[in-house]
């Protein structure tokens, strides 16, 4: 399939390995400042927001974006996913997807 594109799920710990790639990261929003936000995804990650980002402080957010060389993430799509999200589960699942790449991550 031509347009098969995967956006691997990561946590802060994986940022180093994904510079220049598009990833999915879920974290709790800890700071919102204009066009920048920080989220906690097993470590602090800076997100450069786009215009149609509507995040809420304290809620969990799912960000899909490109990892910059300085390990910030330029958001392509952001979504507020509410307050009742189990963050331990999120990072466990992110780790799981890297352990079982065969069903989660296509190399391209």
């Amino acid at each position, binding site marked *: 399939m031509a347009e*098969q594109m995967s956006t691997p799920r990561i946590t802060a710990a994986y940022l180093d390995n994904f510079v220049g790639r598009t990833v999915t990261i879920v974290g709790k929003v800890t700071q919102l400042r204009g066009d920048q936000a920080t989220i906690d995804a097993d470590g602090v990650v800076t997100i450069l927001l786009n215009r149609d980002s509507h995040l809420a402080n304290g809620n969990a957010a799912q960000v899909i974006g490109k990892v910059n060389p300085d390990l910030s993430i330029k958001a392509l799509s952001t979504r507020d996913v509410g307050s009742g999200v189990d963050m331990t589960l999120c990072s466990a699942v992110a780790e799981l997807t890297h352990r079982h790449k065969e069903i989660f991550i296509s190399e391209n």
Partner: protein
Amino acid sequence: MLRGLTGSVPGHPVRVRQAIMRTPAGILAEAEDAERLLAGAVGDAVRESRDAAYDGYSKTSYGAQGGDDSGGFFAGGGSQQGSQGGGGKSYQDESLRPLTIKQILDAEEPYSGAEFKVDGTPITQITFVGQVRSINPQQTNLTIRVDDGTGQIDVKKWIDADKQGDAEPGFEIDSHIRVWGRLKSFSNKRHVGAHVIRPVTDFNEVNYHLLEATYVHLVNTQGPAGAGGNANGDSMFVDGGDGFNAGAGGAQLPSKLSGCSAAAKKVYSYLNDTPGGNDGMHLSNITGGTGMGMREVITAADELLGQGLIYTTVDDETWAILDY
């Protein structure tokens, strides 16, 4: 027998009673008649209870009503009805598989039109969770592009013109949805014919689905949980599941080893069982002690290192168990 019938065939007591007073031949004919009525009554009852069961299916979104939802007849839906009389496709082949979109895209299709296989098992009904990327309303169906981070696939939901509001998607772009349906292939392009689509309101369901998909994948590739003493297949949990092994006889290895190869388990238990101080155990001791080849031990140790179960001590070929 016939006397009993008067009560059990409501609406026809007179007929049956008449039969009792007739000639033998007449009785026979009328008895057959009564029997047919009885069969009819029983048939109604069965049909009613089956219809009730189908109502239940549509509520639980099992998709048994797929026949009228996807606008076409398909073998699976038929066999569920057919199974009343026995026959058709084997019931155990009807499964509902949780999958990632990558698995759907990678599913094997031995030849065009053949049934799809994932992990060597045929798939019939599938379910997955993803984010809506685009919604494309058409005359007869909604085409929805869904992305779950592992890939993207088109989902087609047929619109029932008789149902009010069936053409309304009920969700917006970028929201998460769960889809139940069947994988179809049309001119070399795959799509999912959806029976049911519903919005996901709790984000934890997204993670839940990924866990479930992994669990089923592991059961199909590595055998069921708990089989063979310590291969408990629960390796998807980063660390947990220790209680799981308690009942499995002779399993003194921790369940975090469950995802490891046999060689890795052997090396781990050797390290575990051999008293050797805090400096760990050198490669040559392990090869000597286990009878494994040097390369084999190194591969196993790499695996254990990757899992964070052991660590290197004085040099790269000396390992100790990581306990915490």
